[in-house]
């Protein structure tokens, strides 16, 4: 134990001396954060609209299907209670409740008409105003068709206080996840392939040092670097970009380190498999690049083509980013993100099996 600790400190000191390693594990992540944090990507996009159709009659169905045909709207059907909760978390822009007495029929002047209630997320004023106008337009058209005059239904609007989710709030958890992945895979794979090829590992294995002690020192060195990386990025996010991780810093750090362990196993498997350091970047990019784009780092994972989404939803970084984002943005606790953590655990087991298979001390 003492031996592992002292070994870790020795390796950490060497790691911090390596300018390239420090650049890639601390400076590059910060650059990513600063560049993308100052952009305002994903500003508008579609208006997400939830509909609770309490009438569920031919009239309401016709009305809703008209709304669904409109490109700007992304319509989903959920109950009003669920939708209200989502509105508060800004996972939704609008909720439209269609009342039981909804009907599209001609009315006489002065007769009371059914009232639709629209709840708008006040954190997304642009989306609410665009969505509201579209719904009003549809109502006017439908009314004109049957009545040629007054609207057959009335639209009442209410505001819901949603979290003000800016792009940078979305971005920060993704940046944490992707950099933890890069650090864990690249730092282990590169360093250990070089050490393997040059005979360093063989020389160490000629001493009575237990392989497990050596591995622990390597893993802990990287976990310390990952901790440093996460804390620096969170500090910049909080103080420079005014991001408030709702779920707290500690759960974010713990989940990041869990992710780091997972990606470290992949790094070790890669270090064991590769013959030279030239093979490392190719394979490492092959592993990390798809996750870079499809695991919800810079934009929503829903941006992945529908066809491959069943796969991209199961990528290790997707689980990590989803967990980090729910903690950071929605204030979820560790128990709330247990589904994602389970996904990470399954990947860790797979990675561990690969590492054991490929990273063999008796082969060095």
């Amino acid at each position: 134990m003492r031996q592992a600790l002292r070994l870790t400190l020795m390796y950490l000191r060497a790691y911090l001396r390596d300018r390239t390693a420090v650049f890639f594990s601390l400076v590059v992540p910060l650059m990513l954060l600063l560049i993308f944090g100052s952009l305002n990507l994903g500003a508008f996009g579609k208006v997400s609209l939830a509909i609770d159709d309490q009438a569920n009659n031919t009239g309401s169905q016709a009305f809703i299907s008209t709304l669904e045909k409109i490109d700007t709207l992304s319509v989903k059907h959920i109950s009003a209670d669920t939708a209200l909760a989502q509105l508060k978390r800004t996972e939704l822009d609008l909720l439209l409740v269609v009342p039981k007495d909804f009907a599209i029929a001609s009315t006489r002047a002065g007769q009371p008409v059914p009232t639709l209630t629209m709840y708008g997320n006040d954190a997304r004023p642009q989306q609410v105003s665009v969505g509201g106008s579209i719904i009003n337009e549809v109502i006017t058209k439908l009314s004109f068709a049957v009545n040629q005059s007054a609207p057959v239904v009335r639209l009442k609007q209410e505001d819901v206080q949603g979290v003000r989710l800016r792009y940078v709030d979305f971005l920060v958890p993704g940046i944490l996840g992707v950099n933890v992945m890069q650090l864990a895979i690249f730092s282990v794979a590169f360093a250990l392939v070089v050490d393997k090829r040059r005979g360093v590992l063989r020389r160490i294995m000629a001493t009575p040092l237990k392989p497990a002690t050596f591995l622990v020192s390597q893993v802990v060195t990287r976990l310390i670097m990952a901790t440093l990386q996460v804390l620096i990025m969170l500090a910049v996010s909080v103080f420079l970009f005014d991001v408030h991780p709702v779920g707290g810093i500690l759960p974010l750090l713990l989940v990041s380190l869990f992710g780091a362990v997972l990606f470290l196993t992949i790094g070790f498997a890669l270090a064991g498999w590769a013959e030279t350091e030239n093979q490392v970047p190719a394979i490492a990019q092959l592993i990390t690049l798809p996750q870079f784009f499809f695991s919800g780092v810079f934009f929503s994972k829903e941006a992945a083509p529908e066809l491959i989404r069943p796969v991209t939803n199961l990528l290790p970084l997707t689980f990590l980013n989803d967990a980090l984002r729910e903690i950071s943005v929605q204030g979820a606790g560790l128990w709330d993100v247990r589904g994602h953590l389970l996904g990470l655990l399954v990947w860790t087991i797979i990675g561990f099996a690969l590492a054991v298979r490929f990273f063999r001390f008796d082969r060095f």
Partner: protein
Amino acid sequence: MTAIVSVRDLRKHYGDIEAVRGITFDVLEGEIFGLLGPNGAGKTTTVEILEGLRKADGGEAVVDGIDVSKDPARAKERVGVQLQQSAFPENFTAKETVELFALCYGVTVDAMALLQEVDLADKAGQRQEKLSGGQRQRLSIATALVNRPRVLFLDEPTTGLDPQARRNLWELVRGIRQAGTTVFLTTHYMDEAEVLCDRVAVMDHGQIIAMDAPRILITGLLGRGFSKPVIQQQANLEDVFLDLTGHELRED
């Protein structure tokens, strides 16, 4: 003198290739023993089995009374090792490299004293990757001495060194033997074996084909009627080179 390394009918094959084909020899306590042979003769495999880095397929290898195949960890504690490629983790200074290896053996050492022993005290604070070839070989020997080994294994210690650095390393090896450590080295330089080793074993195709003191092997050959086609010169080009450039180490 008693045997400190004892090898009996040792065998090792890689796939179809029989690298070591049942070799038997003893290394006596306090001697400098050389295992000679061309590349691919099986020298390194033999040494690596004795160092506990490879498992033998058959036979027995005992180092300082410990059966290496049964208890490699304990055997590793008794020996010092210099591998053919001496490489160390990057971004460690010479002194830190010695300390790293001491930690691997779970011992504390006076790293500066060890560096002094191999004439590297003035390079203690320098990154090991910036050392010259000869300096790195001496650092490698320092790391092999951290556990005060009973036997020091040196695998081709002077390959790639200039004549000055080679002679300097020979002196170092003699000094280590003088201090009571048995030295087991492999080489394919016959002049090195001749001046340095008390006894040598010649290995080829995985077998030991001759074993004795270098002088006796030479006398035996002459006794069989061998003579060189040209008259032996009293000096060779290396002597000229050393006369012109001096014996001092050239390092920056």
